[in-house]
Each structure stands twice: as structure tokens, then as C-alpha cells.
């Protein structure tokens, strides 16, 4: 026992120095570098260098088909400001993000509150609500595309109750709504689980105290539950917005940006410009715009995370 303690107190003697140069410190130094080397190299090669290149490309007129690559300064950015489509694209992106946050978070909160009643069998419901998260994204989107056809399952269902449904994916207003709803059902399970964890962190005594004071269930929810889980609400809304800016497969499979440009969000427009119209320079400019938006939102997220001390491990 005593020997153990003395050995711990004198770590310099263990392990015995085999070599004057390779001290434990130097060994650690080298091991640390070797351990992070693959990740560091990967980040530099596949993230940082491409990011610099995006900035560089955005200053060029670059058409792959014509094999031309000329420095044009800020011309792409001027083109961006004058692009007659960009207003519609940004509006579609904003509409999608805002719609998704509202629909997704309300539904997530509703599901979490229902599951938090701790009735028997809620585990089963939790699994069912979460299951679309693990279903392949394109598979999920194909089924919904199938159901949202003019003569598809959803309009059949509506017809059964005497309603003539619209051609969901082909009319301006409903296409965006459809994309938002499909995306919500796909991923709402994640936010639901985060809300459920937050709800379970609300002390039971608070509820009981409020109930004794004669508060209604709605008042308790609005005055006690909601304020206490507000950090989670903010965090999930930012995570959801940042995620919504990256939506691509859903748009590509459901609407291809249509009808018109009503569901052409920024990433889809970027893909069209770069890989369908082969305007790589302009595509890079759009990438910079996307990066600026995501960066601003992420900075906001980190600042909020610091302000509302969230239980992080």
C-alpha cells in the first residue's frame, strides 16, 4: 500500500527512463500528434482547402463544358445580386426553414408531452415516432411522393371523406407545404427525444405546487414547463434551421425545385447551377452565400449554448 502511494507520488520514476531523449513527455507529444494526424490531415484536405478554393473559384468565370477558367473579380457576386431567381430561391429557403422549425418543433413538443405522461406502452409509441429517422431518406421520400400523387393514397383518403385534394406536388402553395411535412415526419423523432429529456428534467414538485394552487394544465404548461425547457427549444430550433439549409434529396426527389422555382432552395439551386448548367464559378459563389448563412447561425448557436448553460457532458 505504502509503496503504491510513493510510486504515484513520483511518476518520474515510472516507467523507468529507457532513454534520456524519449521522456514520457516527449513520447506523449509524439503520440498525440500521431493520433490526431489522420483527422487533422483530413480536415485540411477535405474541408479547409476546399473552403479556400470555393472562395477562389467564386472569383472566376468557369464553364466546364467550354473549359474556360478566367479571373473576373467580383463579377459573380454582382451577378448574384442581380440574379432574377435569387430572390425566389432565398424566399423558398426562408419559407422552408421557418415552416420546418414551426411545424417540427410544435409536433416534437406535442409528442414529447404526450409521451411524458408515462402511461404504459409509451416505449412502443416512442419507437414508432422515431422509426422514420432510421428509414433511408430517399426511400422515405419516394413513398411520400407516391402517396402525394394526384391519384395517390392521400387524395384517396381525402376523397373518402368527400374532399377533393389538390395535386400536392404540382401546385405552388402545396408543394412547399408537402416538402415541409414530409421532412418533419422524417426527423421529428430526434427533437421529440431531446424535448422528452428536457421535460423529464423539470422537477415534479413544481407541477404539484402549481396544481395545489389551482392552476390549470394549460397554465402549468405555459408558465412552468415552457420557460424551464426554453434552452432546449432554442437549441433544437437552431439545429433544425441549420439542418434545413442542407435539405437536398427531399427536394430533388419530391419536386425537383418546382413547380416553377417555388421549392428551389439554396442548395438545390447551387446543385443546378454547378452540376446541371456547369457554371462552376457561379456555383462557388452560391456556396459562399450558403456558408455565410450557416456560419452566422452556428455562431448564434454557440453563443446561446454558452448563455443558457445546457447540460453537456
Amino acid at each position, binding site marked *: 500500500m505504502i509503496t503504491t502511494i510513493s510510486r504515484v507520488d513520483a511518476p518520474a520514476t515510472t516507467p523507468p527512463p529507457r532513454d534520456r531523449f524519449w521522456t514520457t513527455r516527449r513520447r506523449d507529444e509524439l*503520440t498525440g500528434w500521431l*493520433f*490526431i494526424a489522420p483527422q487533422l490531415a483530413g480536415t485540411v484536405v477535405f474541408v479547409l482547402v*476546399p473552403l479556400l478554393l470555393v472562395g477562389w473559384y467564386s472569383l472566376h468565370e468557369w464553364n466546364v463544358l467550354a473549359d474556360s477558367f478566367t479571373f473576373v473579380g467580383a463579377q459573380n457576386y454582382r451577378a448574384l445580386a442581380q440574379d432574377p431567381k435569387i430572390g425566389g430561391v432565398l424566399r423558398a429557403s426562408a419559407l422552408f426553414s421557418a415552416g420546418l422549425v414551426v411545424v417540427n418543433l410544435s409536433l416534437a413538443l406535442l409528442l414529447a408531452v*404526450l409521451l411524458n405522461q408515462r402511461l404504459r406502452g409509451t416505449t412502443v409509441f416512442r419507437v414508432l415516432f422515431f422509426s422514420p429517422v432510421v428509414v433511408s431518406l430517399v426511400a422515405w421520400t419516394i413513398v411520400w411522393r407516391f402517396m402525394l400523387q394526384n391519384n395517390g393514397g392521400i387524395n384517396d383518403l381525402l376523397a373518402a371523406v368527400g374532399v377533393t385534394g389538390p395535386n400536392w406536388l404540382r401546385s405552388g402553395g402545396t408543394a412547399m407545404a408537402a416538402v415541409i411535412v414530409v421532412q418533419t415526419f422524417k426527423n421529428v423523432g430526434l427533437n421529440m427525444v431531446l424535448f422528452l429529456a428536457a421535460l423529464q428534467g423539470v422537477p415534479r414538485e413544481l407541477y404539484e405546487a402549481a396544481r395545489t394552487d389551482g392552476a390549470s394544465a394549460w397554465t402549468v404548461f405555459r408558465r412552468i414547463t415552457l420557460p424551464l425547457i426554453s434552452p432546449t427549444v432554442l*437549441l433544437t430550433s437552431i439545429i433544425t434551421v441549420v439542418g434545413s439549409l442542407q435539405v437536398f434529396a427531399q427536394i430533388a426527389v419530391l419536386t425537383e425545385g418546382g413547380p416553377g422555382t417555388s421549392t428551389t432552395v439554396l442548395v438545390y439551386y447551387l446543385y443546378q447551377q454547378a452540376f446541371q448548367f456547369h457554371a462552376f464559378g457561379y456555383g462557388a459563389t452560391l456556396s459562399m452565400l*450558403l456558408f455565410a448563412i450557416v456560419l452566422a447561425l452556428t455562431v448564434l448557436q454557440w453563443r446561446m449554448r454558452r448563455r443558457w448553460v445546457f447540460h453537456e457532458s
Partner: protein
Amino acid sequence: MSRRAKILVYAALSVLCVPFVFPTWWMVTSSFKPNADIFSARLWPRHLSLQPWHDVFTLQPFARQYANSLYIALLVTAGTMVVASMAGYAFARIRFRGQNILFVVVLTGLLIPSEVTIVPLFRMFNAAGLIDTHWPLILVPIFGAPSVLATFIMRQFFITLPGELEEAARLDGLGRAGTFRRVALPLARPALGAVAIFTFLHSWNLYLEPIVFLSTKTKFTLPQALTQFTDAYQGPLWNVQLSAASMTAIPVLIVFVLAQRHFIEGLAQTGLKG
């Protein structure tokens, strides 16, 4: 809670369940309908037709595409677990010069969505002659932005390990690498599980990257192949698409149901940190 309230909660849960469960049911049952019958509003097909499930394999090299997706996802998962656990361990437990600044450098990977860098990545892989190969779908996730999230998760886990464990390993004569492999890694199983689930699903779902990098049908991955079952007028062959979609989704769903707690906790954790 009163009996009435309980019934109300159960009723609400059951109704809300429908849009989550019904699409999967509809996908599987409609995949057995003949194309003429595809839009019939029957919960169960009138005639079970195995033709669509057969067509999946004759219209496209689907078995090959399935194997592509599977081997890429497994390779990416294994590679990410190695890269991320090593980097996460070093950032959490080893002291070396430049540690903090390098951690910030790596974390930039979380800030930059892959959609932003797709144009230069295409150019770089083109210059390397690796367009229409699987390399971009393997290398970028293992070493690039997607694994940064995994590294972050692993670091957050390793930070919580008590220092005494490493001290004990050191006294037993284990070096740093030995301590990592024999002591820290076995304890990190929950975090590694979360990383594995998240990484596999990420690779399995990848869509933008395959359609940008791949052009030969035998090299396609599943998400890309699913939408390619079309008739001569580019209209979707619904029953074939739905059979292929079922084959893509059902195995993962089965694993999910068997290990649902790990999936839900792991994915919620990665979702939060991301």
C-alpha cells in the same frame, strides 16, 4: 390521471402515429401490387405480385448497387471509428503542443456543410482521376467533415474517464497506445456505438455526393439507384421503386427495432452535439 384523460392521451398517440407508420406499411404492400393496380386504395393488395421484386434486379444491377452501399457504409463506419476514437482520445487525454489550436482547426469541419465544398471536391477528385469511383464516398466521410462530429463525440466521452484508470495502466507498464487500446477504448463502447450508428446511417443515406461523383450504373449506391427505376418516358415505375425502397429500408428498421434504445440515445446525442 383520470381514466378519461388516459383514454384521450392514448387516442391522440394512436392518431398521431399514423403518418409515421403508414408510409412504411404502404411502401411494402404497394410494392406487391401490379403496376396497373398501383393506385388502388387497398390496404392489402388484391393480388400479390412478386414481379416488381423480380424487376428490381433485372432493370438495374441492383444486387451490385446494394453491395456498393453496404461495403461503402461498413468501410466508412469502421474507418471513422478508428480515426475519431484516436483523435478524440488525443484531444481529451494527451497533452501536446498546439493541442487547443489544432482542436479548433478540426472543429471547423462542424461549421462547414458538405454542400458548401462539393464544387471544389469535385474538381479535386477530378484532377486525381477519381471521378466515377467510390473513393470520394469513402475518403471524405472517414477523414473529412462527417468524422469531425464523431471525433467531437469521442473527445467528450474520453474527457469523463477518471484519470486513475490511466495511471493504473501506466503502472502496469502500458504505454500511451496500450492504455488507449486496452483501457480507454473498451470503456468507450457506448460512445463508439453511437458513432457507429450515426456514421452508418449517414453513409447509407448519402445522396448529393453519389449523384455528383458517380455516373456508371454498376457503381451507383442505393439512394441514387432508387429513383432510376423509370419507364421509357422517365415516369417512375412505382411498384419497382417501392420494392427497391423496401429492400433499402427494412433491414435497417429491423436492426433499429432490436436495438432501439441504443439507436435513439445515440442519435439524439449526436444530433444535439452536431
